[in-house]
C-alpha cells in the first residue's frame, strides 16, 4: 500500500491483508540499509491474526520516495506523520537496530501515539567506529561485507527467512546492495549521531520489550540491557545463539516473543 507522508510516496507492506484501521495497529521499522521485507514472516502473521500491520520502507529505502532521513529524531517524526496518513491514533512500534532507536524516540516524544514499543537488536549508544562510518561513505561494498558478517551468528539457519532453502547471509547482503547509493552512510550516520537514548528511554511510558541476540556483534546484548534498565516498564528477552539479524536467524522465536508481548494485558 502506498501512503503520502511528508510530501513523498511511502510504501507500506500490510502483511497480505487490506489495512483495517479499526484493528490494533503495529508499525514495523527496519534497520539500516534495509526495507520492509526483513519482517515478512512476523508482519504477515500478525496481519492474519487480528492486527493492522504497517511494515514501512523508510524514506529513500525500498519502494519509498524521498531521501533517507538524516537523524533518528527525523525518523520518529516521520512515524507520527505516517500514523496520521494512515488515520491511526496509536500503534505498537516494533523496530530493529536503527529502527529500534526511531521507535524509542517516537514512543518517548509522542506517548499518546505509542501503545507499546518493541526494540530488537538494539543498543545505546549505537556508535559506529570512525573507520566503518568512513567505509559506509566511500567503500560501500567493504562496509556491507563487514556489517553482514557482524550481523550473523552462524552460517546455517533453520529454517531460513523467508523460508527453507534461503541463504540468510546472502539474502541480507543482497537486500543492502539493492538499496540506493548513499542510504548506507545516511543510516549509519543517523545511528552514530543519536545522543539522547537514555533520556528518551526514561520518558517511555508504555510497556517496552527488548529482544536481543546473545551473539549480536553489531548491537551487543549488554548495551541493549543497559538501555532496557533506563525504561520504566521493560522486559528483556535474549535469544540464545542469535546474532543481529534476529528476524532472519530466529524468525519463529522473534514472532513468539512479539506475540506474547503484544497480547499481554
Amino acid at each position, binding site marked *: 500500500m502506498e501512503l503520502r507522508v511528508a510530501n513523498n510516496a511511502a510504501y507500506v507492506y500490510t502483511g497480505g491483508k487490506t489495512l483495517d484501521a479499526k484493528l490494533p495497529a503495529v508499525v514495523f521499522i527496519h534497520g539500516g540499509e534495509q526495507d520492509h521485507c526483513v519482517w515478512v514472516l512476523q508482519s*504477515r502473521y500478525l496481519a492474519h491474526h487480528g492486527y493492522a500491520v504497517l511494515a514501512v520502507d523508510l524514506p529513500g529505502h525500498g519502494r519509498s520516495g524521498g531521501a533517507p532521513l538524516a537523524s533518528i529524531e527525523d525518523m520518529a517524526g516521520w512515524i507520527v506523520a505516517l500514523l496520521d496518513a494512515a488515520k491511526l491514533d496509536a500503534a505498537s512500534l516494533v523496530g530493529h537496530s536503527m529502527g529500534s532507536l526511531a521507535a524509542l524516540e517516537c514512543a518517548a516524544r509522542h506517548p499518546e501515539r505509542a501503545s507499546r514499543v518493541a526494540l530488537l537488536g538494539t543498543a545505546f549508544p549505537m556508535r559506529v567506529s570512525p573507520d566503518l562510518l568512513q567505509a559506509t561513505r566511500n567503500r560501500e561494498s567493504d562496509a556491507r561485507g563487514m556489517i553482514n558478517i557482524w550481523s550473523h551468528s552462524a552460517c546455517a539457519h533453520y529454517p531460513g527467512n523467508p523460508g527453507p532453502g534461503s541463504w540468510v547471509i546472502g539474502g541480507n547482503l543482497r537486500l543492502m546492495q539493492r538499496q540506493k547509493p548513499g542510504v548506507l552512510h545516511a543510516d549509519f550516520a543517523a545511528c552514530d549521531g543519536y545522543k539522547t537514548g537514555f533520556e528518551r528511554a526514561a520518558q517511555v511510558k508504555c510497556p517496552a520489550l527488548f529482544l536481543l541476540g546473545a551473539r549480536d556483534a553489531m548491537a551487543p546484548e549488554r548495551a541493549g540491557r543497559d538501555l532496557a534498565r533506563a525504561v520504566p516498564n521493560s522486559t528483556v528477552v535474549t535469544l540464545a545463539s542469535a546474532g543481529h539479524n534476529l528476524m532472519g536467524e530466529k524468525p519463529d522465536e522473534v514472532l513468539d516473543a512479539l506475540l506474547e508481548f503484544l497480547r499481554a494485558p
Partner: protein
Amino acid sequence: MAAPRSLQFDTLSLHAGQRPDPVTGARATPIYFTTSFVFRDADHAAALFNMERGGHVYSRISNPTNAVLEERVAALEGGVGAIATASGQAALHLAVATIAGAGSHIVSSRALYGGSHNLLSYTLPRFGIETTFVDPRDPAAWKKAIRPNTRLLFGETLGNPGLDVLDIASVAAIAHAAKVPLLVDATFTTPYLLKPFDHGADLVYHSATKFLGGHGVAIGGVLVDGGTFDWEASGKFPELTEPYAGFHGMDFQEESTVAAFLLRARREGLRDFGACMSPASAFQILQGVETLPLRMERHVENTRKLIAFLGTEAAVESIAYPELPSHPDHELAKKLLPRGCGAVFSFNLKGDRAAGRRFIEALAVFSHLANVGDAKSLVIHPASTTHFRMSDAALAEAGIGPGTIRLSIGLEDPEDLIEDLARGLRAARG
C-alpha cells in the same frame, strides 16, 4: 579497525546451511526421510500454509535435508537461496516455467547440452514457449533475437560440445537492457571454477548429478537465485509482481525484495509440477559438495596432464579445451576461468567412425557411458552412440566429427589414465 573475514569457499563447502543436530548431536546432516511434518497446532498449520512462519509441511515443497543442500549451494554461488530439484532438467524447467508461459520467448545459446536443446526446441513449443538459438559468441545475434515477448536469455558457462565460453557479462548486459534475466547452466564449471553471479547472471542452475555430487550415485538439480534482478522495475513479470490467485493472492515481489523468484518457484513450481529431490539424493549430493574444492582442483590438474599428453600424439587431430591457445575463447577463458576450464572436453581422432569405436573398446580404466562429472573417468564416442543415426554431414553441422571423442576426466592416478589413452590410440590406428 580489523576487518572481519567471511567464511571462505572450502569452509562453506563443509558448513554452510548446517549445524550439528541440536537434539541428537549428529554432526553429519541427517536424512529426514519423511513425507510430512507434524503441526504444533491448527494455528501453526495455517501459518505454515500461508507463509507466516518458516518451516516444513510436505517434502515435495521443502525438506530439512534438501534445505541444507539448497543453502549450501546458494552460499557457494553467492546467491540468496536455492531449490533442489529432481534433476538438472527439472531445474531448467522450473526456471523457465516460473517466469515464462504460453506466448513467451527465450533466446538461448545454441551450444547446449542435448537434453536442454530438446526441451527448448521440441517440448516447450508444445506449451507455447518458443526459443531462438544463437551463436553464443555473437553479441549482435543475441540482441537481434530479442522480441517484445522475450522473457529469458539462457546459456551454458561452457557450451556443448566445443566448450564455448559464455561471455556472461556481455550477455547479461544485453539481457538487462531488454529488462529480462540471464539464466546460466553452470554444471561444467561449478562455483569452484566460476561464479556466474559475480559477472552479472541472475539465475544459475546445476545438474547436481555431475560435479556437485561427483560420485555418480544420485540424480539431482539445484536452481539458485542471485537476488539481483529487479522484477518490479522490469515490468515484464506479472507472475512475480502482481497478486497470484493460486497462492492466497500473494505478490511475491512485495513479500521479498530479493527472493521473489524463489518464492514463486517453490510455492507454484515444486507444488504443481512436483519435480522435487529425494532427501536421500540431497544427502548423497551433500557428501560430494563437502569435497568439491579438492575434487575440482584434482579434476583440472588431471585434465591438464591428459591434454598435454594428447597434444603430443600423432593420432590426435585436434583438442577443444579453452586453456589451449588454439581455442577460440582462449582469452575469455583466461579472464573468467583462471582456476581451469573444467574436466570435460572433446578431441578428434584421425580416421573414421571405426577408429573411434576401436579406441573406445580398447580402454580399460575409462568407463564407456553417457555421463560426465564423475569421480571416475568417462568416455563416449558420439558418432557410434548418442548420434549414431546421423550422417557425417549432419554430425559436422552439430560440431561433431566421426572421430570425436568426449572425455570426462576423473580423479584416478593421471599416469594410469595416460596409459589407458595410449592403449586406445594404438588400437585406433588399427
